[in-house]
């Protein structure tokens, strides 16, 4: 099988040295994707012809000394909910079967501008609703570390693609943990930028006030390069921060001594967490302490309300965002409907999977007359309290350190019958989206052969600090260098 593609940084050095070409890298990526697809199910489609064309163009540009970006000529993968012109955009849903996007997401425009090459689209939970990549019309994606286990979700396909060395960099979306949790389960780095940092134009909306696009890669360094390439104000997204692209890469590699890292007691005490996960995270904290970081206990008192708050807000927004999937202008339309109502009901009911239906119903209920105040309005108020918790913690801390998940990757099929249990496992990630702050997950150890993820959370506006800390951690440890055993 084709050699794994390791990191963006290493590949870039090889390209710069002339030791390889973008065309070669793309061929390797495509070959590896094909070879591993039966086992992993990471992709929903590959775009070999387009990728080869773009790789050739990238090589030509490099020849003319026009290759400026760290991502230039690098093969990458996109989650199936990011629009790319001329490509199917399915969100792993039957409701969008046959739909080909006529426009590019801003993310794709920016990737194109820096010369990155999209080789294909990765599997996900339908409409990003799920934490296991089992709720997909294409079937599940499997965890490269243990094919009987979930890679997490909803960006499980992107995580598996990176963890299995198919591409060094992939993009996903994170609404309640959908980049960070799969990164934790698969032993890679996943970044959810601060809200508004990366344009949402072209990301199929799940929950508009929570969604963010972000990179998945092996190192914090690669994620920093990716963020710098894709961030920055976009006039087409009204919620986009009015700031230029980040320069997080140049903040890395230096000293982290003197930074204050908070340990929120609600995340680290208690018996909600697998003890091996808790231990690995505590060791990671001590490792940072050795690097000169000051650890401090802190509190995010409203944490226990986070999951309920999250599920009321995200389902409400989703119920409205998914109303456009009605069979009128695109996507699946049920055959032979007698009238409009039947057309709507059957197209949507036959098209949406069970989890999506559940969330649409919940969200519709939460917004409906008589319940809006008790549920939706109340949840938004609690959200404001959660945001204040973070602001107060960040008054005395530069970053917060927590486990990414309370447990390691669970078995496929284990959770699908118990939605509430599935929701509760998002407890460490959802507050971050509710508060709109940046957070990164990186590998910090293993339990029973499966990766454990460490989460570093930054204050609003500071995507660099968590990346700096993650990078410093990775310079001192080698968890990120471990690889799953995949048959050759």
């Amino acid at each position: 099988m084709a050699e794994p593609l390791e990191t963006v940084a290493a590949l870039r050095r090889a390209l710069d040295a002339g030791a390889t070409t973008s065309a070669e890298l793309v061929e390797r990526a495509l070959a590896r994707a094909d070879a591993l697809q039966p086992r992993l199910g990471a992709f929903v489609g590959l775009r070999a012809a387009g990728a080869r064309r773009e790789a050739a163009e990238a090589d030509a540009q490099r020849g003319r000394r026009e290759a400026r970006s760290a991502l230039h000529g690098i093969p990458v993968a996109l989650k199936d909910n990011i629009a790319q012109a001329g490509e199917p955009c399915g969100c792993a849903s039957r409701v969008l079967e046959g739909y080909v996007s006529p426009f590019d997401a801003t993310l794709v425009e920016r990737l194109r501008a820096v010369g990155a090459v999209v080789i294909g689209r990765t599997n996900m939970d339908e409409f990003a609703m799920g934490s296991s990549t089992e709720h997909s019309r294409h079937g599940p994606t499997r965890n490269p570390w243990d094919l009987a286990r979930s890679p997490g979700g909803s960006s499980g396909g992107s995580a598996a693609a990176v963890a299995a060395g198919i591409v060094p960099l992939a993009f996903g979306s994170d609404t309640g943990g959908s980049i960070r949790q799969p990164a934790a389960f698969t032993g890679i780095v996943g970044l959810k930028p601060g809200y508004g940092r990366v344009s949402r134009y072209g990301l199929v909306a799940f929950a508009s006030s929570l969604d963010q696009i972000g990179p998945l890669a092996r190192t914090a360094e690669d994620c920093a390069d990716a963020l710098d390439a894709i961030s920055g104000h976009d006039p087409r997204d009204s919620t986009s921060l009015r700031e230029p692209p980040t320069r997080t890469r140049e903040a890395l590699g230096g000293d982290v001594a003197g930074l204050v890292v908070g340990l929120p007691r609600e995340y680290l005490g208690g018996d909600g967490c697998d003890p091996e996960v808790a231990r690995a995270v505590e060791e990671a904290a001590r490792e940072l302490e050795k690097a000169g970081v000051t650890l401090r206990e802190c509190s995010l008192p409203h944490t226990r309300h986070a999951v309920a708050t999250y599920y009321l807000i995200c389902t409400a927004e989703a119920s409205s965002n998914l109303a456009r999937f009605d069979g009128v202008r695109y996507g699946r339309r049920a055959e032979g409907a007698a009238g409009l109502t039947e057309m709507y009901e059957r197209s949507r009911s036959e098209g949406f999977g069970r989890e999506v239906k559940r969330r649409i119903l919940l969200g519709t209920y939460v917004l409906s007359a008589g319940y809006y105040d008790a549920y939706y309005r109340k949840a938004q108020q609690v959200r404001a309290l959660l945001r204040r918790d973070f602001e107060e913690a960040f008054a005395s801390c530069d970053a917060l350190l927590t486990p990414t998940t309370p447990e390691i990757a669970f078995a496929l099929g284990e959770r699908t019958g118990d939605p509430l249990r599935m929701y509760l496992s998002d407890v460490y990630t959802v507050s971050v989206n509710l508060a709109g702050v940046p957070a990164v997950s990186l590998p910090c150890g293993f339990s029973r052969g499966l990766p454990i993820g460490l989460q570093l959370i930054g204050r609003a506006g500071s995507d660099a600090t968590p990346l700096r800390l993650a990078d410093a951690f990775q310079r001192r440890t080698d968890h990120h260098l471990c690889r799953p055993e995949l048959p050759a």
Partner: protein
Amino acid sequence: MSRIGRAEVERIGHLARLRLEEGEAEALARDLDAILGYAAELGAVDTAGASEARSGAALATPLREDRPAPWPGLEQALANAPDADGTAFLVPQVLEGEEEG
């Protein structure tokens, strides 16, 4: 006591234009009931003084200049249409009683 019964699920289902099978409606009612029961604890949270403000994005919606920018992708968009008549989308006839709402 269940918060959300079968009839309620069907009413919500109609609002969301979802048609639920027999067993589906009941199972969903149970799921929703469990989740809402869990969410009901929010009622006890003291939110006096908490505004419903937004996440950390900018505070005022940006304004766009009133200048036309034609989009050349109509043909591609129409290619996705399940049914069309010329450049118009075509849907089943709106029946009596199916007025908007």
